[in-house]
């Protein structure tokens, strides 16, 4: 146990309470977009993957890190885009938006 770990645990504990507090009043219809949006946010592991690739000592570590970078990027990019597509559906309210319909 050192000072850095204590500082990290402090951040962790505060983030736990903040995470609960942030979505305490979410309406049912937003459950799915919210899940998808937070899903994209944990794609932040990409940063960890970049650190691994950047500091790797061996080929094996580089390879593992590289796959992790690809995975993390898919998580972020795909996650945010899918969430946006869902929320786009909620947005268009004006009747003259009708021509933007997707074909089946």
């Amino acid at each position, binding site marked *: 146990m*050192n000072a850095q*770990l204590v500082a*990290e645990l402090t*951040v962790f504990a505060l*983030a736990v309470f*903040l*995470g*609960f507090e*942030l*979505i*305490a009043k*979410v309406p049912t219809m*937003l*459950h*799915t*977009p*919210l*899940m*998808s*949006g*937070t*899903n*994209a*946010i*944990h*794609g*932040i*592991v*990409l*940063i*960890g993957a*970049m650190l*691994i690739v*950047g*500091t790797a*000592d061996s080929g*094996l*570590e*580089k390879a*593992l*890190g*590289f796959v*992790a*970078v*690809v995975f*993390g990027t*898919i*998580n*972020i*990019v*795909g*996650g945010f885009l*899918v969430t946006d*597509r869902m*929320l786009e*559906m909620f*947005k*268009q309210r004006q009747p003259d938006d*009708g021509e933007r319909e997707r074909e*089946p």
Partner: protein
Amino acid sequence: MSRTWIDFAYLVAAICLILGIKRLAHPRTARSGNWIAAVGMAIAVGFTFAIEEIDAYWLMLVGILIGSVIGVGSARMVRMTAIPQMVALFNGVGGGAAALIAAAEFHRLAPESGALDPDHLVGILFSALVGSVSFWGSLVAFGKLQDLVPGRPIVFPAQNLVNAVLGLTLLAAVALTATTEDGLWLAVLMIGALVLGVLFVLPIGGADMPVVISLLNAFTGLAAASTGFVLDNTALIIGGTLVGASGTLLTIKMGQAMGRPLRQTLFGAFGAAPEAAAAVAAADGDGSVRTASPDDIAFMLAYARRVVFVPGYGLAVAQAQHDVRNLGELLEGKGVDVRYAIHPVAGRMPGHMNVLLAEANVPYDELFEMEQINPEFPQTDVVVVVGANDVVNPAARNQPGNPIYGMPILDVDKAHNVVVIKRSLSPGFAGVDNPLFYDPKTVMLFDDA
């Protein structure tokens, strides 16, 4: 760039993520919230390139490019109906990334004896275990929703014994990895986590998949936070923990919306009851199903004063939301009061139906949540159930012992007439037969919605 400035950039990024989640939780601001979070993510990733100790930029850029192409491609091409399994997949790769980070960092630190201080070791073990469980569990969830794996609960004999052995193996692997610092045991741990992830999701029925994906989402968040402890990176800790905490709460809320406490979803014997329920339903029914032609139904609708549409997953599959909307407009032109009743879990995810009907430009004020519409059914002339089943099954109200008993439902059986448009009499996603179909007030129209 000095580490201080990079940590400052991480702080800015973290604030963006927090504001993003906050805005995502409100209908008006949700879309901008998503983009604010994305900007925060871009800041965090961009400044990571500026860390001085890092090299191999090209490898990173190639990895990010490949990931972006896959991510953009799959997010753009996926049909709206397939979005739940896409979310499962994106969640899985996140968990996989966390597990790979743990494995690589272990490999880097392990050769020097004593390099693995307990602070970092705990993080490595946690992200390896939880990340793998999330990865494999998400793949099974994807398979179930994509119909690659049977959607119904899969139970096999001696399951409890297998689980107990698995639990002991994992405990032993954790202990041995910690004491011997041998990569072999970490491999055993990750293989055990694979089996655990698969066995965790397999016994859970398809109808409960959204809750499971949400839970695995929280798992991945915690695994990501744990890699933050391993790599001493606050951005990872904050981002991961926010998802871990909000995801846990969201999972509980989803369970409440479905009327099933989380513990029951995960460990309850959803699979044990169907035989009894099927027997009850068969006794009720004896095939007294009324069918009707489209013309009859058109006639019935034209003379109704109030019509309520109940969309379900069948509508999503058949992409019928535009046709339903057209019919609704036609009826409104004749002075009929048209409403849409949205069950909280209609479709395959909470909010799924709102998205689809909004896509077809159904006005907000005609969409009613279950609590608002249920008292209205007795005054409703015709209810049109389009490809829905479990959410209108009266068995949930009056058949204790039925697997879906206790789930809140739309009381469509209280309306004067019920039209069910469905491809067949087959049971819904939860694998439960529906007595509503045998109700004398009900007419069936077997067709592709």
